[in-house]
């Protein structure tokens, strides 16, 4: 019997609204509304020095801010714990080599590289935060435009970096392998995808898996104080892979549709 309180099946998502390029002073941004959950993600590309162990790659930095508007529990410093948990989950999701092509972010090995600062802002908490955040991060990375730079060598050997004058001359990231998180919450004997706040209150344990568009998993995390049977973990992983693939297809379709509207698109933004 595949019926939840709001009529959805166990594997159905709520209606999602995705919009990119909502914040003008970032390199890329996206806003995702999944039911009552509202997430805003901004990506800023800045120049920095590569890490010592990976001298020819750029890197990503995540920061999650739980706004006090989201729910009364986030008042003051209440949201910091949840914010750091979400940030560490995002780090582990993107830790795999194949997710983002970090070598394309390198300008000068060992000296200069692009650092992408990804800031997540929780505007409203309506259940299923991780999924919405991962969708927003993928949409924001799709929207990110990093300016092209040229490296000029002086006679003495010192390098100068020149930014191109044309504001539309930029490189885009390939987000095909960026994973999305699918949260599977165990309620009773079944598991559901995209739990609302009431369903999350009833669930004792949930499994967060991050799936790429080909169905490969990059990370797995179990949250909640209940326990999960190993058999049910396998079932949940299979469901998660299936749902993850359809999620990627739907998201890519909407991003391409938005892209095709071009500059004539009317931005709804926050005052719609």
């Amino acid at each position: 019997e595949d019926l939840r309180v709001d009529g959805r099946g166990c594997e159905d998502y709520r209606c999602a609204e995705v919009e990119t390029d909502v914040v003008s002073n970032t390199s890329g941004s996206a806003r995702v509304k999944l039911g009552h959950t509202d997430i805003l993600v901004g990506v800023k590309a800045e120049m920095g020095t590569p890490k010592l162990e990976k001298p020819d790659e750029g890197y990503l930095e995540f920061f999650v801010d739980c706004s006090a508007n989201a729910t009364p529990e986030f008042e003051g410093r209440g949201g910091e714990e949840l914010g750091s948990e979400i940030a560490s989950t995002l780090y582990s999701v993107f830790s795999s080599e194949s997710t983002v092509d970090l070598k394309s972010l390198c300008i000068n090995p060992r000296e200069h590289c692009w650092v992408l600062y990804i800031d997540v802002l929780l505007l409203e908490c309506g259940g299923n935060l991780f999924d919405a955040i991962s969708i927003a991060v993928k949409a924001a990375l799709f929207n990110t435009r990093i300016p092209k730079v040229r490296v000029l060598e002086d006679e003495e050997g010192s390098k100068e970096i020149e930014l191109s004058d044309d504001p539309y001359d930029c490189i885009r990231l390939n987000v095909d392998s960026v994973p999305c998180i699918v949260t599977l919450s165990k309620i009773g004997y079944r598991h559901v995808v995209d739990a609302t706040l009431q369903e999350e209150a009833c669930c004792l344990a949930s499994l967060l898996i991050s799936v790429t568009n080909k169905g490969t998993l990059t990370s797995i995390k179990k949250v909640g104080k209940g326990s999960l049977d190993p058999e049910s973990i396998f079932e949940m992983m299979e469901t998660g892979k299936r749902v993850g693939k359809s999620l990627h297809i739907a998201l890519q379709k909407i991003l391409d549709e938005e892209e095709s509207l071009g500059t004539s698109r009317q931005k709804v933004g926050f005052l719609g």
Partner: protein
Amino acid sequence: MAAISMRLPVVRKPVGPSGPRGGEKHLVAPGDTITTDTGYMRGHGTYVEDEKLIASVAGAVERVNKLVCVRALKTRYNGEVGDIVVGRITEVQQKRWKVETNSRLDSILLLSSMNLPGGELRRRSAEDELAMRDYLQEGDLISAEVQSIFSDGAVSLHTRSLKYGKLGQGVLVQVSPSLVKRQKTHFHDLPCGASVILGNNGFIWIYPTPEQKDEEAGGFTTNLEPVPLSDREVISRLRNCIVALVTQKMMLFDTSILYCYEASLPHQIKDILKPEVMEEIVLETQQRLLDLEG
């Protein structure tokens, strides 16, 4: 198969009631001047500045002789004697329960206002006090009537009738109290197969219609048998219809919920929450209600 629908955002305006019906209402926003006439006494929701009467909440102005007050549109529940409320037990105290009813202060249900099982009438003894937790625990949902209001605004409830008491299996929908229309009765048995309790505090309880009326139980025994799928579908559809009406700011009463249910039958239950389907069924409901009036 998973159904995932993503879309681009579109500017939408609520299709609910717009335009004056039966008399203009003087709507004000915080900071709007109501009147510059100093002859009025100021009531709730107003303040005086520079000899002007200014509204402090967003709502409709009400004028009774010389008293001007502003009744807010979206507010916490303000209890009135005789209202039906649905509440959740938050605390079990010495001789009373504290009930959360979406108001400014927790409501109180005194032990002496509660019906004992079997319908006995006697003084509550110390054993009754110790057995309080057997009747109602923290987290239980009850339906009750407002008996009186304390001076600080807290509401005192009573369940002195067999139709009130602990609620069993069903679905709770929380809406704004100002959207629930005041009617003669708030317990409705809808012909579609479910029953609904429209609490004046904005808590709406939808449950499957019980086959026979248990008169002896007095509302304490909860039926934990699994609810059949057909009943659950009706209840989910009603819940989505109520959410649709609330999103479009329509008043909730039994006729509007029933018309909305009938308008939603061609759609699948999960589709009712899509914005365009919501607008369509609420428009149809509004049309039928206008035809009913006029």
